[in-house]
């Protein structure tokens, strides 16, 4: 498979389909038994390939931020690694980009609602200026209206900064809303890939059955 700069790619599949494993392989936090993952020609295992290239937001926001860190410290963590500016202005700007403000800087993760915590995780992911943000079921645990707010936020980041996404989810409607292209995964294999605009015209029986099961 490929991902192209600026693209918003959805990876959809049922639980157990292998989509999360694929996500971990793309991030380089798991090694394949065969084959290669490269970013800009460099293997993902090379630290230089990862810096400024890809960052991630996961499903469980309660375990994604160190519980002893304030929001400020959580945001500073990746900035220290890429050597970016860690000043108050930059942090305030990051929070504003995700619809929060400076008042959150001294809060602890347990003081945040689900939506707020996930926004902090997105802000943290944006801070290293990656080309691509990988989101693994990042909105599934949120309330419906909050899911919508986060999707709009991601759309906004895409439109303003050309942020690219790899959006892993079982929620086909969410993927159709955010993504340009959708890849359907089944039992560890790529079943079909389709431009979102052509979703109606999927070819395989499995893809058709999957789309029929969407509760609108």
């Amino acid at each position: 498979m490929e991902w192209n700069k600026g693209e918003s790619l959805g990876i959809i599949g049922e639980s157990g389909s292998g989509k999360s494993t694929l996500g971990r392989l793309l991030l380089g936090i798991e090694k394949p038994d065969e084959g290669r993952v490269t970013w800009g020609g460099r293997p993902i295992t090379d630290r230089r390939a990862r810096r400024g290239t890809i960052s991630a937001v996961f499903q469980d926001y309660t375990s994604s931020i160190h519980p002893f860190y304030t929001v400020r410290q959580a945001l500073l963590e990746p900035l220290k690694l890429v050597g970016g500016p860690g000043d108050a202005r930059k942090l305030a700007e990051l929070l504003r980009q995700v619809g929060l403000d400076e008042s959150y800087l001294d809060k602890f993760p347990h003081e945040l609602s689900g939506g707020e915590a996930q926004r902090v995780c997105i802000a943290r992911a944006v801070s290293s200026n990656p080309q691509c943000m990988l989101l693994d079921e990042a909105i599934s645990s949120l309330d419906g209206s909050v899911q919508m707010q986060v999707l709009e936020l991601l759309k906004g980041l895409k439109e303003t900064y050309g942020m690219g996404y790899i959006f892993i989810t079982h929620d086909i409607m969410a993927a159709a809303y955010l993504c340009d292209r959708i890849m359907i995964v089944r039992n560890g294999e790529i079943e079909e890939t389709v431009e979102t605009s052509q979703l109606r015209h999927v070819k395989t029986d499995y893809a058709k059955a999957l789309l029929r099961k969407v509760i609108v």
Partner: protein
Amino acid sequence: MSLLEVEHLRIWDGGSGAVLVPDSSFRLSQGECLAIVGESGSGKSLTCKALMRLNRPGIRQTGRVALNGVDLTGLSDKEMRPYRGKRMCMIMQNGMRAFDPSRPVGAYLLEALSLHGDWSRSEMVAGLSAAMMSVGLSDPSAVMGRYPHELSGGMLQRTMIALAIVLEPDVIIADEPTTALDAVTQYEVVEQFVALRGRIGSAIVFVSHDLGVVRRIADEVLVMKDGVIVEQGGTDAIFGGASHPYTRYLVSSKEALRSRYLQLMGGDAHC
């Protein structure tokens, strides 16, 4: 007299004194499906558990909860026990937590049945097997021999639905039964609930934050926010033209998502 009458239900935290549900009243008729919708913190789970007096010890409640005219809140724990399971049965969100992890699923099912009826063991196994086949578990004895962690979320939900089919309670309380499942399994479990309504005459209280699911299954809807019921009404009325701003907000919040999807799929989306 309605099947289930809830009057002035008040729930608070005994430790801090914080009021969680100030004053809720609603009714459930025979055979009806009532959905309770709301976002996290709305009090829907607390309300469900209060109906069966299953909130954790620190949570206190007052108010009348009457099943067929009998006020459950006045019963002792011993008197309450035959009601839980046989008269009112709960299907929970996370199947893994509903079952005893140290025993195979079959052991739990048989124990639940033996508490509530006079069947022989072979009658129970036969009844369960038939019910499990009917919910799509094609190898009931294999499923009964498995431990909860060996079964998928969807299979655990189906198992709980099968138990409800055998028990045929007056009221089934389903607390976010599809929330922890992936989209395909959600669809299949919702279809099981729809089929269940056709099979047994139980009334259902169905708690969910997913309005698409509610639209599919419910006759009546209660909308809760911050512990308060802000609106009640028939499903069509609520989704068609609700009066309360919060209901309108909930209904419309995913509208952009739905309309984009419907636009992409043309007329082919399953509604």
